[in-house]
């Protein structure tokens, strides 16, 4: 099982993508005038059985109930089974985009209009019919949130101009500027963008943070919820995609990520499926008979930022490059191997088809197993920048999370040993970390950030953009920003690929942050759970509905 899980995205795309990409593109990314030749909507496995209760353990104590406003699995874990999206990622591979509430869609040749044709007869859990007005209201809110409502996915739809309900079952998104199809369809298929009723939004002044159970169209309906304990849902008998869902009842237990509670609940058989297991429990689960343990990529980079606005030395690209090269990444991954699973990567997701392939990356300075050449180069750069004796008294702000605390000590030692950079660690609670990062009260600051899409354009704007919300280093690099803008506008993937590689080179030479590792996710499930294998999924936010899962 784990060997299969080690198939990375690139290998997966090579195998599946090359064989079927043409056919898939033709059938699933529709062109004007084309009707859906083949409905790729999720269908049940031929062997699937109906009934049973799935006991699922995942972080699910959300700070509020508004999925659109959230960025955490604590919302999407327990709430997504109650909702649908316009289009979705196939639960078979977590990659292919397939119909959901939109039975088919068309994209104008110039990429400036997306038309979605909705299914008829879809009902919300309160009995109301789904219409284009609901989709329009949902996306109006996502694209242009009202005051006091903050939606992390809003930037993905920055080029959406008008949203028009052409008729009760057709919605048009008119773009002010075209974006790559994969980028836009990925945005529409994001698990965060659930469709809610216009009336629900109107009744609550557009803010659902404190509305626990608002009607969706999804395969499961709310039954009861006990805060920080369990959310119980039952099969929606009127689900539009009959005969799904397969299971009668979902019990979603609040079990924090990487926690002993999650591990012990799974190992003792109290839950059937565990998401975000700690490595120790996961390894134990892997050895258990009747259990499958899976690993897949997460949409998170673990990094530390160098405050260029506060510290003159850190404003010098050579110093940042030297710090980047001084990191012994294989050792850093080893340091946290019992706390969280990680993999080496650079400035773009290492498993993205356009990023530097892993084999090539591991030959580069800063990523090699033998770090001597990288350290030599780092020392040379420090000398050239005028800091041959290193730096003193850097304020290193550490988020109070086990992995960051372990890494901070290791990084402190590496910086001292390799570059004679001395830093003082300051461990702070999460909300303080973000206060300090936003206010620029740090020299170095370690944390993790997430993206909605794997597409480089998303991270180039959110992580490295001049005014990017997570550009904590206050980094600017005019040639890079120009190139990122071109990449965002380029619709031809063949032309985008070399541009992304060029952008990577620019980031290597002038790092906006120091990448440490890319997170992975450990799941495990008893073999009585069928129809779910996340090994090729990207992140935990898109394929989260459990409609195709069945039990024996």
């Amino acid at each position, binding site marked *: 099982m784990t060997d299969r899980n080690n198939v990375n995205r690139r290998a997966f795309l090579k195998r599946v993508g090359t064989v079927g990409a043409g056919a898939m593109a033709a059938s699933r990314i529709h062109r004007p005038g084309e009707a859906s030749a083949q409905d790729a909507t999720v269908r049940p496995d031929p062997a699937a059985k109906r009934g049973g209760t799935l006991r699922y353990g995942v972080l699910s*104590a*959300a*700070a*509020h*109930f508004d999925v659109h*406003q*959230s*960025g*955490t699995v604590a919302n999407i874990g327990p709430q997504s089974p109650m909702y649908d999206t316009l289009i979705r990622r196939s639960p078979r591979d977590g990659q292919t985009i397939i119909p959901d509430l939109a039975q088919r869609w068309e994209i104008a040749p110039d990429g400036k209009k997306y038309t979605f044709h909705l299914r008829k007869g879809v009902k919300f859990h309160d009995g109301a019919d789904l219409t284009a007005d609901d989709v329009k209201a949902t996306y109006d809110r996502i694209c242009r949130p009202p*005051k*006091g*409502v*903050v*939606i*992390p996915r*809003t*930037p993905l739809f920055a080029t959406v101009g008008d949203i028009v309900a052409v008729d009760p079952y057709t919605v048009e998104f008119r773009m002010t500027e075209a974006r790559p199809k994969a980028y836009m369809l990925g945005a529409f298929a994001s698990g965060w963008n659930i469709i809610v009723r216009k009336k629900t939004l109107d009744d609550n002044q557009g*803010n659902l*943070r*404190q509305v*626990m159970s608002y009607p969706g169209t999804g395969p499961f309906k709310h039954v009861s919820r*006990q*805060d*920080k*304990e*369990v959310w119980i849902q039952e099969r929606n008998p009127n689900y539009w995609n009959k005969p799904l869902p397969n299971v009668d009842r979902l019990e979603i*237990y609040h*079990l924090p990520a990487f926690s*002993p*509670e999650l591990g*012990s*609940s799974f*190992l*003792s*058989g*109290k*839950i059937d499926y565990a998401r975000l297991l700690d490595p120790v429990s996961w390894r134990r689960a892997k050895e258990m008979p009747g259990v499958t343990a899976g690993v897949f990529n997460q949409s998170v980079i673990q990094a530390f930022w160098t405050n260029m606005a506060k510290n003159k030395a850190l404003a010098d690209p050579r110093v940042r490059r030297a710090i980047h090269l001084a990191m012994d990444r294989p050792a850093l991954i080893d340091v946290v191997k019992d706390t969280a699973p990680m993999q080496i990567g650079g400035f773009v997701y290492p498993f993205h088809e356009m990023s530097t392939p892993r084999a090539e990356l591991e030959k580069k300075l800063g990523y090699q197993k033998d770090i001597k050449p990288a350290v030599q180069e780092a020392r040379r750069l420090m000398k050239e920048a005028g800091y041959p004796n290193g730096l003193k008294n850097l304020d290193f702000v550490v988020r109070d999370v086990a992995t960051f605390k372990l890494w901070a000590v290791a990084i402190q030692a590496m910086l001292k040993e390799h570059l004679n950079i001395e830093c003082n660690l300051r461990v*702070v*609670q*999460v*909300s*303080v970390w*973000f*206060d300090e990062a*936003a206010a620029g009260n740090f020299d170095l600051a370690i944390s993790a*950030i*997430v993206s909605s899409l794997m597409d480089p354009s998303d991270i180039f704007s*959110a992580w490295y953009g001049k005014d990017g*919300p*997570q550009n904590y280093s206050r980094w600017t690099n005019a040639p890079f920003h120009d190139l990122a803008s071109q990449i965002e506008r380029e619709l031809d993937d063949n032309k985008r690929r070399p541009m992304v590689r060029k952008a990577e080179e620019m980031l290597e030479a002038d790092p906006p942050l120091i990448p440490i590792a890319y997170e992975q996710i450990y799941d495990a499930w008893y073999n009585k759970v069928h129809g779910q294998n996340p090994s090729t999924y990207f992140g935990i936010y898109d394929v989260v509905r459990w409609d195709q899962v069945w039990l024996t």
Partner: protein
Amino acid sequence: MRKYLARRAIYAAVTLLGVSLSIFAILRVLPGDPLVAILGVEGHAQMKPADRERIMADLGFSDPLPIQYVHWLGDIAAGQLGKSFFRGDTVGELIRHRGPISAEIGVLALIVSWLVGLPVGILSAFKPNSMPDGIARALSVTFIAIPGFWLGMLIVLALLFWFGYKTPIVIVHFWDNPWQNLQIVVGPAVVLGLAQGAYIARMSRSCMLEVIGEDFVRTARAKGLREWLVVMRHALPNALLPVITISGVLLGFVLGGSVAVEQAFGVPGLGRALVTAVIERDIIVVQNLVLLYAVIFVGVNVLVDLSYAWLDPRIRYS
């Protein structure tokens, strides 16, 4: 007696007012933005000043601090204890649901501490410097020294790896399913109880040693009373007073210790709710739970004071 009670009530009210003011002030000067937990990292990073203003106003945090404090006192008077500013649940609901589990753990811990501590203390006192006394003293020091959360984690791991056992993961109240409920509360109660029992054993040993040297005990023995009657009827009641006093103080340790021990055992009680609320900067939940703990602590200590007169008729409240 009435005057004494009135005076104690006034002292208790002043203490609680002090606690409420302290916790209110501390939570508002602590660094850290609660909106990080509400909006998440990405949302927080995108938040505009106007959004912040609106959200803080919705949460009632844009009012001047004295007004916020008065609103809180009003919520307490109404029995609602305010709302968690995340999900909108009232703290009253939280206490009603989780309180019984934590209360069970606290009461059971006190019972365990007395059941273990008192006999061990008496035994040690009547056979001072013997091997049983040495063992009892060594164990007392051990249980005082061992952190409850660590012992809790060891127990959880041992049960899991040796027996594949894990306690129920959601709250089961005693009146719904006593067996499952006991599985949840027994572990934390024993861990907390053993630590407090160690203090009680040491205290009761020293008190008993003092009492058994008194003339009235010698007289009782001289009368030919059996040893257990000497202990139970004459020595113990006179040695109990300091033990009861320390039990009131130890309740504070039980309340404080339950926060970490509930976390270690994964028990979804009030202690765990407090930890989560602190991490989330859920100010309303934290201030109400801290105040609740203060009310319990003050209340129990008043009861302890009142019990002196019952245990020792020589004591008069005047």
